[in-house]
């Protein structure tokens, strides 16, 4: 067990998935089963409303889609080495930027949702600027207080923001839940595709290089500040977009959903799934949101024990999250496989 994890961590540290060369040749042969599983999953999720239309599970799945995007957007920020504890606040900015005009000015949701996303991006990018000189733990703490400030401002916003009770009566987009399902599902697919594209593009590689060592990155001409701000803007766009759609779906916006507690749980989704993998956030949301909602909801007041137990199990047994463990296992299996085929050709 211990040597397996060791090999795995060195793999991840030294060879980011994006690195070209040998790794590509390896993954290409391995990609097909993964792709077909993914395709199957998309197909099942696309057809699911036919079966469960009008059930509570629709609601859970819609929430899941939202949180997969939000957790992934946090991870996008994190690949540039920024442990951002304000993602909930960006989501909140998007939500309130959409909710306030919707409630008080009765603007159409089709206007307010893009407005929310754009507002979150602009605010995110502007705020990222002074924070770009902070690194590691200082960045994390700085953004923690940034999130706290945003929530406090919303709470102190008087009647406009509804203070700590929140704003009610945000106009719904559709009356039928199935439309929401497809909207959330579609947005999730598009968002994930964009994020995938970014992470495995040249820019993504640059961001990862900055995360590894900002000095080395600077020495090869990668602008640290620019790329870090870009990462935050990119992440906050998706967080704000989903925040805006989410508040139209829920019909309410409340600071509770975007505060420190909510942000920490979003981060937990990513850590449980595996911060080093693109699919980690999705798996983490499945683990911490879907499983408790589907199987343990009847525990009610005792439900937090289940989530705490999941966290502890993952922390103790899977240092790289669930996807990290899966990867370690598949690596091991395929290595043994190859070793059997071509003797002596150990990687």
């Amino acid at each position: 067990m211990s040597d397996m994890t060791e090999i795995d961590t060195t793999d991840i540290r030294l060879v980011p998935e994006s690195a070209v060369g040998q790794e590509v040749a390896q993954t290409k042969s391995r990609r097909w089963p993964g792709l077909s599983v993914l395709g199957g999953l998309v197909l099942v999720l696309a057809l699911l409303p036919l079966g469960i239309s009008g059930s509570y599970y629709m609601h859970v799945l819609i929430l899941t889609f939202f949180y997969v995007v939000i957790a992934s957007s946090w991870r996008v920020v994190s690949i540039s080495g920024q442990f951002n504890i304000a993602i909930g606040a960006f989501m909140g900015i998007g939500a309130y930027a959409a909710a306030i005009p919707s409630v008080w000015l009765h603007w159409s949701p089709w206007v307010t949702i893009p407005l929310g996303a754009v507002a979150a991006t602009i605010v995110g990018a502007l705020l990222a600027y002074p924070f770009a000189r902070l690194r590691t733990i200082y960045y994390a703490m700085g953004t923690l207080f940034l999130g706290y400030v945003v929530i406090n401002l919303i709470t102190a916003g008087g009647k406009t923001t509804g203070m700590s009770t929140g704003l009610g009566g945000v106009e719904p987009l559709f009356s039928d839940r199935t439309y929401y399902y497809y909207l959330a599902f579609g947005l999730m697919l598009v968002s994930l595709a964009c994020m995938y594209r970014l992470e495995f593009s040249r820019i993504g590689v640059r961001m990862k290089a900055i995360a590894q060592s900002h000095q080395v990155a600077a020495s090869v001409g990668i602008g640290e500040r620019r790329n870090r701000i870009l990462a935050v803007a990119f992440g906050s766009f998706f967080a704000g977009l989903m925040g805006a759609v989410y508040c139209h779906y829920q019909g309410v916006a409340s600071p509770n959903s975007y505060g420190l507690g909510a942000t920490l749980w979003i981060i937990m989704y990513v850590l449980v799934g595996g911060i080093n993998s693109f699919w980690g956030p999705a798996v983490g949301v499945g683990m911490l949101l879907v499983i408790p909602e589907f199987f343990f909801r009847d525990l009610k007041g005792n439900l937090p024990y289940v989530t705490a137990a999941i966290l502890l199990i993952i922390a103790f047994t899977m240092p790289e999250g669930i996807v990290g463990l899966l990867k370690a296992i598949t690596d091991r299996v395929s290595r043994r496989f190859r070793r059997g085929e071509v003797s002596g050709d150990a990687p």
Partner: protein
Amino acid sequence: MKKTAWVSVLMVLMILLAVVPALAGCGKAEETTTTSAPTQTTAGPTPTTAAPSSTETTTAQMETLQIGVILSLTDWFSVVDAAEKMDIEYVAQMINEDGGIKVQGKSYKVELVIEDGKSSLDGNTAAANKLVLDKKLKFVVGPGAFFNLATTPIFEQNKVLHVANYNGLNPAEMNKDTRYAFLGLDPITQQSAALKALKLYYPNVKNVALASEDATFPAFEPHFRALVERTGLTLAGEPILYATQAEDYNPIAAKIKALNPDAVWMPIGIDPTYFGIVKGLRTLGYQGPITFPVDAPSVVGALGDSATGIVGILSKQVEDPYIAAPMKRLLLMGDPKRHVFGLAPNALYLLKHAIEAADSLDPTVVRDKWETLTSLPTLYGDGFPSGNQLYGLPNHAWAHPIPVCLINDGKVEYKPWILPDVTP
């Protein structure tokens, strides 16, 4: 050398001291938690164990009527709602013992489907969705406080009759278009009783300082101002607002004291904030009466010698000679010393009588009948509609007599219950 030796001896002593009483303390602490745990669990399952036995024995062929309940069992609002859960289960048991809900000659046993609202608007949306979509329920009790913001649209869209425990007066919670929304307690009437009691027992009071938690207050403000006027009082200074999450209430107490009012009125808040402010005021030497919703034993327990000059409303105790019969019965069903908020249980009680009056299980029929009723029994005695103009709906919001007590020097004196003024 000598010093280090001394330090290490001290450390060893400390660790010894730490380990021995800690073990003992842990053991004891565990004991107390476990002893308190069984009382909790025995209190929990009793209705469920009692309910099947009653079905088996009395009415084997009794059909069940599922009624949804939304309460926040986790996070900050569970301070209120965990207690409400226990009491609403007792009321369901009470209804079942009396033969269930009788509709068109048939008796229906009440079965509660309780969902956790998680003390957040999101959590309440999820709970409402679960009840409406999955369980397909037609009648729902709850939620309380401002959480109706999240649930009202879902219930209205699905034509589910929902009786809120009480609400935050936000138009999104209840307005002229939300025709399936009912309200177990018009929150303004409670405060009407508080001010009336204040005037009755402290006739010299001419002005009151208003201190409130700030989030829900804006919606209440005009109504409270009108209420003060209707009662024949004046406000001392501007209302003093504070955040629910404040740790230290002494600055707020100091601000209230600075207004030098005849009395202090705290309409909205949760127990810790009331207690914190009263403690602060009494420490500062403020002598005037203070009125807020209390649970008398909690107040005496938490405030100690600061518990004096308090005009309390809403404390339900068995010792109270004026207590309404159904409320007394509810109290005696569990530990009679427990803190009964009695909001959700009362909403269920109202709903039962409304369904029986309508003699139908169709929420629309029940609603139409309910809108014509002008009196319904509540846990507190005869209920009456209030706030028709305020909510824009006829007979949707209800009120009832309010328990009153005076607390002086840590002693509770129960007073006749006060009939609050009807809100226009």
